């Protein structure tokens, strides 16, 4: 926070800044959700395994790890707060989904496919975390490269 004295215009500019952030989150969220919808239309569910959801959650984890690190404090990409909210909270948040993961797992369990359900849980959590780490590791390397 800066030490600027309070002025009458500050509440208005705060409201405006908040509105801009909400607009960025909403716009990114729509793009991410439509990308997830298209992935679900294109990627087939083979032998009852929810590949489309696994795909978006892995790629979304990679993107957020990569972008957060590249645009972070030591990053080489300058991004404003609205830009970061658009990509991370908006796009990545809208693109990935924990609710579909939960529904698919419960449906598998209720259908008596406990083995597939447990495999889905384990594969999901492990691959999501590997993906976010890969994104972070790749961006860290790029941040350490010389030059602008």
């Amino acid at each position: 926070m800066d030490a600027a004295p309070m002025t009458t215009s500050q509440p208005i500019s705060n409201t405006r800044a908040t509105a801009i952030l909400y607009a960025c989150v909403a716009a990114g969220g729509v793009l991410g959700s439509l990308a997830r919808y298209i992935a679900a239309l294109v990627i087939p569910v083979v032998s009852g395994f929810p590949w489309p959801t696994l795909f978006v959650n892995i790629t979304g984890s990679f993107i957020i790890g990569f972008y957060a690190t590249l645009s972070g404090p030591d990053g080489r990409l300058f991004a404003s707060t609205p830009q970061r909210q658009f990509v991370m909270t908006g796009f990545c948040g809208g693109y990935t989904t924990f609710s579909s993961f939960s529904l698919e797992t419960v449906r598998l369990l209720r259908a008596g496919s406990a083995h597939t359900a447990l495999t889905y849980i384990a594969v999901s959590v492990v691959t999501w975390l590997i993906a976010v780490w890969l994104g972070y590791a790749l961006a860290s390397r790029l941040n350490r490269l010389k030059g602008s």
Partner: protein
Amino acid sequence: MIGGFISVALGSVLGACARYFVSGFVARRIGETFPYGTLLINVTGAFVIGIFGDLATDNASLFAAPDPWLFAVTGFLGAYTTVSSFSLQTLSLARDGEGGRALLYVALSVALSLAAATLGFVLVDALR
């Protein structure tokens, strides 16, 4: 086809803004040492998707139709809940030397979300 895209888009505007609001609200109230906001979002989203998922098995239900499902589930709940923030927060905890809290966060997120989705199914079954 176009109607599907519009349904997803409308639901996702509301879902993404709801997530931004809840995570900000929880962060201001409780703080950000542990990702309670995202946990709350994913658990509540899982509970509601359990309800809608069970309702959709009844062909007479609203959610058995494509557009309400695309609006409420693919759009709203899909944008409301998030795996990307979950992954990034887990990585941050682990990198800060908080391995125990990272594992706790993963375990709580998965166990509570699956329990909440199951509870949604159980609730609808009980009311039928």
